[in-house]
């Protein structure tokens, strides 16, 4: 069983970003099924978390609903991240979520990146904004992302082409998920404590018993 987290930075209702996130998620499930893997997904919409994200950024206080979203991402085997393109980049809300997400959450995590925009001319947002950020966060970014412009959701011909791009990216991502396998959740606290114990000259005698209970 593969656990996925899906992040949609869409703002409006209905939102084309949310729509794209759903379609990619479905395609990834199908692609995983084709290689005999079942999957479960948690959809995280950032719009209702907007205030909590900003509170966390300004005051460090993380509201329970945001904590839940962090937890869903941290315990996933892979992430599908979809943002609208604003001013030649990801939206501020999308970026802010990853700015307050605890460090190391995305280390070694396969990520499929996707974006929506008004015209095709913004499609490089995937490779010029999303990919560098996720690389910086030590994620394993799938080579193929999905970019969808307004045209893709309109014309008959356009939407067939979008479906094909989604399926291609989903198949690549499924293979990436399979080869990466189940992911061990990162525990930044445990890493810090190991370092502290080393500094205190006690690493050898306490390594076995150092656990953190919730």
């Amino acid at each position, binding site marked *: 069983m593969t656990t996925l987290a899906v992040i949609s930075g869409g703002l409006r209702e209905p939102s084309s970003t949310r729509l794209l996130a759903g379609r990619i998620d479905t395609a990834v499930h199908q692609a995983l099924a084709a290689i005999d893997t079942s999957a479960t997904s948690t959809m995280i919409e950032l719009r209702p978390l907007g205030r909590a994200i900003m509170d966390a950024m300004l*005051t460090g206080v993380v509201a329970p609903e945001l904590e839940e979203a962090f937890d869903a991402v941290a315990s996933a085997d892979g992430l599908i991240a979809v943002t609208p393109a604003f001013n030649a980049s990801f939206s501020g809300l999308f970026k802010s979520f990853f700015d307050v997400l605890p460090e190391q959450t995305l280390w070694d995590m396969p990520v499929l990146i996707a974006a929506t925009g008004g015209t095709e001319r913004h499609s490089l947002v995937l490779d010029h904004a999303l990919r560098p950020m996720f690389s910086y966060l030590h994620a394993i970014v799938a080579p193929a992302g999905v970019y969808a412009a307004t045209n893709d959701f309109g014309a008959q011909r356009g939407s067939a082409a979008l479906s094909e791009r989604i399926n291609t990216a989903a198949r690549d991502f499924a293979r990436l998920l399979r080869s990466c396998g189940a992911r061990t959740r990162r525990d930044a606290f445990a890493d*810090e404590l190991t370092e502290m114990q080393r500094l205190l000259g006690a690493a050898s005698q306490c390594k076995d018993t150092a656990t953190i209970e919730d």
Partner: protein
Amino acid sequence: MSGMQFGVFTVGDVTPDPTTGIAPTEADRIRATVTIAKKVEEVGLDVFATGEHHNPPFVPSSPTTLLGYIAAQTERIILSTATTLITTNDPVKIAEDFSVLQHLSGGRTDVMLGRGNTGPVYPWFGQDIRAAIPLTVEHYDLLRRLWREEIVDWTGEFRTSLQGFTLAPRPLDGVPPFVWHASIRTMEVAELAAYYGDGFFANHIFWPSSHTKRMVQYYRQRFEHYGHGSAHQAIVGLGGQVFMRANSQDAVNEFRPYFDNAPVYGHGPSLEEFTASTPLTVGSPQQVIDRTLGFREYVGDYQRQLFLVDHAGLPLKTVLEQLDLLGGEVVPVLRKEFQRGRPADVPAGPTHESLVKAAAQEDRQE
């Protein structure tokens, strides 16, 4: 002072009163701090602790100067810090300052150490925030030795070596001040406190209670691991934050503008949200009693409870009224209730007398 200790800790911010726009001068604020400390003694609380900050809008940059002045005007309360920066202060100077304070106050001194999380402060004192943790470990190791060993030979990474150095004055009765290690969110501090069997103080007020629970549990478990006693005997302190009026709605109405504009968390979560996820309690004295007694459910029987009551521009008169309520209505009930069901082998809050007694016992055993 058997059982738990109760007191206040101050950040020492100079903040305009948001309801009047009037800001106290630095002199006003420092004198108000002294008045608050004397009131702490007058209303029957046990501890006054001051923060240490090196930038406006804060005034307490020299805590032992302030505490020495307060020591001269009080007779009973313990004078402490919240926190003394173990990273940017020279451990030799910390040892000296607190030794003198200990002698002047007749042993009514302990110290709470913290790393300090204000990046720009580090270079002002020749340090680098990126080395905060190794600095903490090295400086604290030296501080302990200065207080415990007559002649210290020491070499480290962050400070010039010491050869044949003797701290003067030696600690009062040969017993160093009790040390607390304070943390808002950093688990490493719990490890440090547990390693040495020192006290662990969870700031508690800026971070959800669920995290405080996790840190304290970890500290207790590690305290036992390092052989200082059972987990339930570890020395725990907690912060808290209250605003009271006889009628709870009056408390909410009066405190809201201060909360909304508070330097740390203002313009963020609402008063109601912050109250739900942190120990902030705004209401009647009975609500404060109930909430505070609830802390024991997630940290166990503990030793010290400090309240923040004097920040965000609250006028001195209001702060003194809060202390009247704490001393008159809240703490007497808390003392009694916290004692109920408290196992006999849970230590009381540490004092100079209890440390002298423990040291004498250790001598006899050796």
